[in-house]
């Protein structure tokens, strides 16, 4: 594409490398050194001690349980999204009815509803339903808020399926259901993995719903654990950063394995 390097852009990217690289270095270095080493030699220095106490310390303050809870929430959210969004996207792309286009418009509008906007009534509804301080009370709203973007991503992917394929199947007298299972689902595997990664990221990183809808340690998720760790052990910076690093390990693993799906999904937001 470009034969000569773009100097302005190159300088900008080096600046960004510094801005991202330095904090990441400080964070990783801090997690393997002792509290004393960090306090005496400063955050930017090279560690002169090595310890894994900061990581084990996080588990001692309950992160094992929080990880398990987050895993349950994430798994269930992915399950709900995979159950609801493919038929929805299929209808959006293929149905010609007015009701379907009205539903699609509802989801487009839903893209703009921030979780903060509904958190008060959500607290009311979840309490009334007896789901307060219960993981299910976190799972349901989190999944609902994954739907608009997932519908947008997956319907975008399903639009790339050639109409000739539908026509060929229609000639054979295939029902919409058969087309869905034999044509649409197999051909939109890329889009499906994108919405899985996207929902996983949303669920894993979710904060507001767990903050307001849960209370006890047994229903606490990782992000909330981090928040609590900070308010309780704020001075133990290496310990705190150890917990931060642990909280991002699963996401980094997902990123390494599903980088393409993730980047595609996020780029899709550009509305091209």
């Amino acid at each position, binding site marked *: 594409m470009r034969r000569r390097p773009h100097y302005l852009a190159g300088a900008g990217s080096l600046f960004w490398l510094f801005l991202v690289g330095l904090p990441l270095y400080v964070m990783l270095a801090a997690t393997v050194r002792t509290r004393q080493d960090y306090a005496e030699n400063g955050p930017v220095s090279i560690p002169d001690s090595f310890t894994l106490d900061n990581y084990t310390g996080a588990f001692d303050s309950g992160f094992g349980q929080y990880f398990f809870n987050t895993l349950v929430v994430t798994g269930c959210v992915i399950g709900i999204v995979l159950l609801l969004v493919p038929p929805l996207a299929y209808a959006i792309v293929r149905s010609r009815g007015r009701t379907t286009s009205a539903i699609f418009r509802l989801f487009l509008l839903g893209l703009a509803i921030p979780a903060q906007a509904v958190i*008060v009534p959500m607290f009311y*509804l979840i309490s009334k339903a007896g789901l307060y301080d219960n993981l299910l009370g976190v799972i349901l709203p989190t999944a609902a808020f994954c739907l608009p973007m997932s519908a947008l991503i997956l319907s975008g992917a399903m639009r790339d399926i050639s109409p000739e394929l539908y026509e060929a199947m229609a000639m054979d007298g295939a029902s919409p259901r058969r087309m869905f299972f034999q044509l649409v689902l197999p051909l939109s595997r890329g889009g499906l993995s994108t919405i899985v990664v996207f929902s996983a990221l949303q669920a894993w990183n979710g904060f507001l719903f767990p903050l307001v809808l849960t209370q006890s340690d047994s229903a606490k998720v990782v992000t909330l654990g981090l928040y609590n760790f900070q308010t309780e052990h704020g001075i133990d910076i290496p310990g705190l950063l150890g917990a931060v690093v642990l909280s991002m390990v699963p996401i980094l693993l997902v990123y390494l394995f599903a980088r393409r799906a993730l980047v595609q999904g996020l780029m899709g937001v550009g*509305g091209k």
Partner: protein
Amino acid sequence: MTTKTTSAPPAAGPRKGSRRRPPASSATKVGRPGFAWALPAAVFFALFAIVPLIMVAVLSFMSWDGLGSPEFVGMDNWSRLMDDPVMFQSVWLTLLLTVLGVVVQTPLSIVLGVWAAGHQRNRAVLSVIYFIPLLLSATAVSVLWRALLDPNFGIPAEATWLFGDGNLFGEQATAIGVLAFVSTWQFTPFHTLIYQGAARAVPQVLYQAAEIDGAGRYRQFFHITLPQLRNSMITSMILMIVGGLTTFETVLILTQGGPGTDTTISAYYMYDKAFKSFDFGAGSAIALALVVSATVISLIVVRVSGYDKMRSTMEGVS
């Protein structure tokens, strides 16, 4: 992209034209799914997003402490908020932070996006590092920066020539600066991705023509790349605005709205009213104001960027 379809009509032809062929058109109508396929998702979404949205409007006219039952109080919450200086300050701060975010992040992410769209050596490796902030939760990012900027043990204590006494959270101006910086750190990679995709989609013929006419790198950037990124700029800015209006974790974790109420933005004030002061009516009123602003902006998104006419999202990915 529109430019793509106009430049290659034969390729786009069969898709649109297929419905005009009589046998095919009668056949396609047979196998189309009804709205029932969309119904389960619609009902679920309505129950957990639309119903609460209606309820927040109703609750804004009620008084509720979170335990008893809500009572109708008319305009009481609204008139109290109208007399509340913190409310006005929070709106002003929200706007300030949002504008700061757009002004700082837009040029930065355009430069980075155009760079990442090219073919430099080491680009793939660098991209991985660049985009790490994108993967972190707002919670992790905020906790990380709270630790890194700690007045006693953080980076400011090392670089006093730059940070003075090092307590960035003690004053309104620096606290706002920190909030703007942390949002930039976290969200620039996301907007970079948007621009990267758009920069890849710019037709190469334009650059080749400019090269023949003797236009230099910077003229090409300002006269070709930038105008071609117009739609992405609109989308990205609107996402920044909606994101800015709803910033929450960053403020809760980094400043708790302080010092005093100096960084109490609207979303944080809503949380503070509802879940700390147990004044759920006032919290609902603030939330409703947030929804209205976000909805107005999203309607603009749908109109301006053509989300509803979108055909494909698969272009320009490495």
